[in-house]
Every structure is written in C-alpha cells, then in structure tokens.
C-alpha cells in the first residue's frame, strides 16, 4: 500500500544515494518549505470557501455560486483581486512595523506546522516537546497583532490590538491547562507518543470526565485565541469597524486573513491530535476485526476529516452566537474557565498518580 510515509522515505533514499548529507538536508528543507507554503495557499482557499458556504447555508442563502463550478473558483478570484490591489500604508504609520506585522503573523502560523503529524511517519519535525513547542510559538502571534494595531496609527486598530492582547494572553492559560490534561495522562509531550497512546481508542471516547471537560475548555479557549466569533473582539466589525487590520489592504490584508484561517486549521489539528487521536483511525479496545477495517482508511483522511469537523464546529459557533463584551470575555476566562481548568488539572493529576484510569 502506498502511503505518504513510503513516498517521503523513497525520496529521502533517492537523494541520499547520489548526494552528500548536507545537500540532501537542504533539498529536503526546500521541498518541505514548498509543501508548507502550498498547503497554506490551498488551505486558505478551501477554508474561506468553506466558511462562506457554511455561513450562507445557515443564513438561508446560496453563497458563492457563479465563479467556476458551483463557485469553487470564487476564493481564487478574490485572492487575485487582493493581489493586484494597491497596498496602502497610511500616512503617519510606522512603516517598518506596519509591513512587518502581517509577515510575523503568517510566519508564526507556519512555524506551528512543524511538529504536527499528518499521518504515520509523515511529520516535519518529530520533537520530543511537541505540545510545549506549539503552545510556546502560538503565543508569539499576538505580537504581530499588537504590532499591526500600534503601527497603523488608528484608534480602532489600537483598541482592537489591545483587546486582542488581553484576550490571547488570558486564553492561552486555559488552553495550555486543558492540553496538559492529556499530557499528564499520556506522560509525554511528544505528539507521536500522544497519538500512539490512542491506539485502542481516542481520549475523548475513553470515558474520562476530566478529558471531556478539558475538551470543552480547549474548544472555547482556541476559539478565543484565534479571534473567532463569539470572541472576535479584536475585529468586532460593528464596534471597531475591522479592529487591528482596519488600515490594511491588498495582500497585507490577505496575509492576516490567511493567517486567521491557518491558525484555525492548526488549533483544530492540535485538538484532533490530542483528543481525537490525530491520524489514528477509530479503534475500539480489542475489537481486532473492526479496528482492521478502520485501518483501511488512510491516516491522512482520518486526520483531515477530524480537523474539518472541528473547524465546522468553530464556524458553527461563529454563525450562531452574538459577540461577548470585552469585560465578559475576560470574566469568562478568569472567573470560570481558568478555575475549572485548574481544578480539572488537579483531578487529572490525582488520577494519574493513583493510576486509576484507562490508558
């Protein structure tokens, strides 16, 4: 059976046979870079189209349906429009930071891609502190948003950036704590170990109440971290017109837009890895035959299926709920989510120490 693991391995072997190791590494890095960037481009197109269709159907509309077959080329056409649009820099803006901010945001989004395991043996960087790396790098993105808000010389942008700063710093905590639940149960920070631990069933279906609680907290926290409605206070179009990216246009705006969707993809990928077994097919304990049938579906399909289900859930939130107010947002985090997450962590730790749980 051909799998991505075999392809990557055969490329590696073919290159190693004729070239010296340094050159092989460089070529492989270049290939990986191109793959990541093209994945980004495709993801941007697909997710924006998905969002527009999801919102359209929920709003009893048809959504884009004119450009290309059933409107599939709509987002490509929009990207083209954004590419050829003039990128204005407002007078009085800090030009350097203004131009740097979208790049920073997109680079951070790319960095988090590194430790994610797409299928068995198909991973850019098998780092043993994968989860820690992800939560560390993802919090750098807020600097880009703060930079954009500050450099725009616009009060709406500044307010949006400040809100975003407060929001991401707060929600980072409960997102981190909910991730720790799984880390404690698995006993490892490595993404591969976490996936391997779900060989006999995904964490969410193993029947642990702390895992369920931490999943709910995780979903809420990452929705907030990615600035999605109902927590889209940084943009809050009815209050701050467009928040931190009010002054951005053309491709620089497109980068922010792309980064938002890539961030959603990544947090959903993390969520799928932690709670839904990553690329691991749906296994039930010792039902060997059932598990065997499930294995016929390739891991990459499982992984993307799980990610897109989670993305759909987050989009569903966005098109149903009103936005929270800024003080309610922080209240929710500091008064409800954080204490619950901490208590949950305590519970998990007790479980882990006593060994009273299904591995």
């Amino acid at each position, binding site marked *: 059976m051909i799998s991505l693991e075999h392809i990557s391995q055969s490329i590696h072997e073919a290159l190693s046979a004729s070239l010296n190791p340094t050159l092989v590494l460089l070529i492989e890095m270049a290939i990986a870079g191109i793959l990541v960037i093209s994945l980004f481009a495709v993801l941007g197109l697909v997710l924006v189209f998905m969002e527009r269709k999801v919102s359209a159907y929920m709003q*009893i*509309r048809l959504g884009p349906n004119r450009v290309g077959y059933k409107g599939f080329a709509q987002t490509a056409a929009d990207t083209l429009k954004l590419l050829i649009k003039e990128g204005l820099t407002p007078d009085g803006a800090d030009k350097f930071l203004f131009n740097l901010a979208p790049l920073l945001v997109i680079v951070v989004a790319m960095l988090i891609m590194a430790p994610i395991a797409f299928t068995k043996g198909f991973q850019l960087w098998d780092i043993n502190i994968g989860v820690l790396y992800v939560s560390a790098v993802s919090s750098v993105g807020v600097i880009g948003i703060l930079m954009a808000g500050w450099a725009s010389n616009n009060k709406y942008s500044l307010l949006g950036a400040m809100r975003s700063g407060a929001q991401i710093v707060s929600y980072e905590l409960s997102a981190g704590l909910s991730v720790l639940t799984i880390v404690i149960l698995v006993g490892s920070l490595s993404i591969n170990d976490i996936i391997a631990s779900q060989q006999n069933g995904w964490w969410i279906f193993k029947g642990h109440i702390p895992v369920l609680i931490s999943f709910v907290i995780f979903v809420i926290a990452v929705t907030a971290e990615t600035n999605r409605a109902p927590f889209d206070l940084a943009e809050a179009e009815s209050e701050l017109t467009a928040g931190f990216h009010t002054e951005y246009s053309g491709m620089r705006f497109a980068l922010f837009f792309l980064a938002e969707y890539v961030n959603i993809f990544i947090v959903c990928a993390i969520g799928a890895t932690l709670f839904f077994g990553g690329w691991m097919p749906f296994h039930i304990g010792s039902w060997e035959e059932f598990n065997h049938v499930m294995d016929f579906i390739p891991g990459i399909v499982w992984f993307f299926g799980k990610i897109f289900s989670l993305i759909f859930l987050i989009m*569903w939130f966005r098109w149903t709920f009103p936005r929270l107010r800024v003080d309610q947002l922080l209240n929710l985090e500091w008064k409800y989510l954080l204490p619950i997450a901490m208590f949950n962590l305590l519970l998990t730790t007790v479980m882990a120490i006593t060994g009273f749980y299904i591995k």
Partner: protein
Amino acid sequence: MFIVDYIKTVYSTCKSLLSGMRLTGYYFFHHKEIITEQYPDVKAVMAERFRGEVVMTHDEKNEHRCTGCTACELACPNATIKIVTKQELQPDGKKKKALETFVYHLELCTMCNLCIVACPTDAIKMAQTFEHSVYDRSQLTKKLNAPGSKLMEGVE
C-alpha cells in the same frame, strides 16, 4: 443551594446555546429553505401595480390620450414632468392646444403616483420596469410621446 443554582445556570446556558446551534444547524442541512433569488439569471416578475417609471400609452395607430392639460405637471412634487404644448389648427378652423412634447425626468422621479392619479384622461401609467441604470444621466430625461403620435379621437 449555591451548587444547585450554579449547575442550573450552567445547564440553562448550555441549553440556550445548543438550541440556537440546533436552529442554524437545521438551516445548514435543509437547503429547501434557501430564499436566494438568482437575479440576472432569473428575472423577478414585478406586481402589476409596481411603479417603475411613467410611460404614455399608445395604441396601434400611434395615438395617445394626452391633451396637454398639465394636470400631471402641477401634481408632481419634484418638477419631474414638463409639458410643452403647441397650437394646432382644427379642421373647423379653430385653434386648439395640443401636446408637443411630454418631457419626463426619471432622475427626479420618486414614483409617488400622484401624476397618474391626477391625469383626467388616463394618458399616462406606471410601467413595471426597474432596471433604470444608464451611463449618462442625460439618458434619464425621456420624451414620453412617440414621434409622430397624435391625440386619440374623442379624448377631451
């Protein structure tokens, strides 16, 4: 009890949020509820009373019913209508006022229907067109009586 109240609040919160999500989820999966009209492909049929623009009715002999009485011009709140009359020689030798040009400024018109109501001879009526956009506003000034048309017999 504090704990009971707390759990009740959490429960009702989740219930209210989930019921909202159920509704949007229902619409997501029930595409027959979609109300989008595919406008340029499927043209809307306007109601017969819809006020699109003022037109003058002409019969097959290219005759209209307008006597040039200027009742519509007086009734119009926006000076949309301008009637130019001429003196026409009747067969019996008498001179009679007749319509020369019925100028209609679509760009000033608010479709209030007052001119139609005011017209004593039912010479003008509202058409159901609605795609009025043009590239130059001078195209919106229209001449309503067809070239060479004359007053219908028997209309006073």
